[in-house]
């Protein structure tokens, strides 16, 4: 399902597939929540300074303000809504790709390149190989005073990174 939502955001689904996903989105609150989260994540990536929480409801509100005079309440307005969202998602996906390529591009410098090669090295460590040290370090690091427990995200997040090839 996640892949389908992602594909839908990127505008890569065929019409009938998209219809099916949209239908599920409309009927299953969990999936709808997922959809919103994806947008939020794209939003954060794209513009970390201005996170628009709950973007879909904002758009829905705007759409509701739009006069729908005598048009029958039907799929037409729905399609318009989803089309708008889908287009927005494509833009986001593009910006995301651009953002990622900037990240990759910046790795050419020797220092970062060294980091990269060693990141591969880290992958060969057992999952818990460094966590003990990180935990022990964080216990005393001034970062804990400033960031509180969020600084432990290094340890939570890291194991993920460790396992990646």
């Amino acid at each position, binding site marked *: 399902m996640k892949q389908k939502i992602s594909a839908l955001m990127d505008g890569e689904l065929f019409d009938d597939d998209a219809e099916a996903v949209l239908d599920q989105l409309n009927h299953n609150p969990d999936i709808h929540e997922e959809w919103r989260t994806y947008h*939020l*994540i794209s939003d*954060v*990536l794209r513009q*970390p*300074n*201005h*996170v628009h*929480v709950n973007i879909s409801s904002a758009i829905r509100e705007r759409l509701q303000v739009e006069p729908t005079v005598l048009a029958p309440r039907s799929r037409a307005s729905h399609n318009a809504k989803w089309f708008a969202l889908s287009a927005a998602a494509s833009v986001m996906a593009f910006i995301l790709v651009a953002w*990622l390529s900037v*990240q*990759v591009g*910046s790795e050419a410098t020797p*220092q970062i390149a*060294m*980091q990269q090669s*060693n*990141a591969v*090295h*880290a992958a*060969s*460590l*057992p999952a*818990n*190989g*460094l966590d*003990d*040290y*990180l*935990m*022990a*370090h964080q*216990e*005393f*690091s*001034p*970062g*804990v*005073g*400033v*960031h*509180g*427990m*969020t600084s*432990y*995200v*290094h*340890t*939570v*997040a*890291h*194991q*993920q*990174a460790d396992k990646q090839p």
Partner: protein
Amino acid sequence: MKAGFALIMVLFSSAVPAFADTGSRVDPDWPQIIAYATHQTDYSGTFVYQHGSHMETARITHMSDQSGEHEKLENLDGPRREFIRNNKEIWWYLGDHKAVQMERPYSGKRFPALLPEQLSALNENYLIQTAEQARIAGFDTQAIVFQPKDTLRYSHKMWAHKDSGLLLKAVVLNERKQMVEQYTFIQLEIDGDIEPTQLMPRQSAAFLEQPSHSVTQSDTSAQADMSDWKVVAVPTGFKKIMEMRRPLHGNKTAVIHFVFSDGLAGISVFIETLGNHFDKKPGLSSRGAVHVYRKIKDDYLVTVVGEVPPRTVMQVADSVRYKGQ
């Protein structure tokens, strides 16, 4: 609690116009306010943590009451992991393994807030300035920039909630102003009602408690004396704030642990006998702003961990000396 902050903020905002000519000079209390708020405010929210092309979301719930601080950090991506802290005690829940590991700090020392000496260290090592005001996760924030005076440490930018002082976003930048890591709250509730159950572990995993080893003399007998070791090339501004022998999780022998701090970043140096650590390959690894460098020195394994650039941890590791060497 909140009234206290409000008062501080009122004082701050009324004091600033009086010294308008000082421009972006930061109120010296900001770092202290942030540190205080982190530990004294009740909050619950979701944040995104990003480093390189990695991105993770995690949920944090924090509550402070008469019995102290209670906190839960839980990752929302990948295998479930939870950290639960009750004051100084940290429980680490690894959902996949249905196991619970316990990490108990070995001394009472923590950083409930930035200590006065650390604040002065901060001012010596960083140029602290207020920057723009921004809206993050629906809250109005003030940005504060910590610009280091050399390239051996990272610059930090933090966005603090104007009312509570809570940190809503933090970015670590390298000398080329590129993002090393950042975390941003995307959803947050401040001073909301937090049910104690929200701070409980989500899974009632089959308990496997691994209490910490206590350091005994026999543990450490094979170990070189702590005073025999010196770290000679710690960057200017880093001061040793702690030295101790500690057991490291699962390790039978104790390790020597030095901690250096410049007020914002910490560098830990671990020294242990090589023993059966041949599998731990030396070299550099990095996770966001935290760099780890391991080096074998004679029969010892030196591990340096810090929220500093790679060359700083390498420089520190290379400067570890035994006795008169």
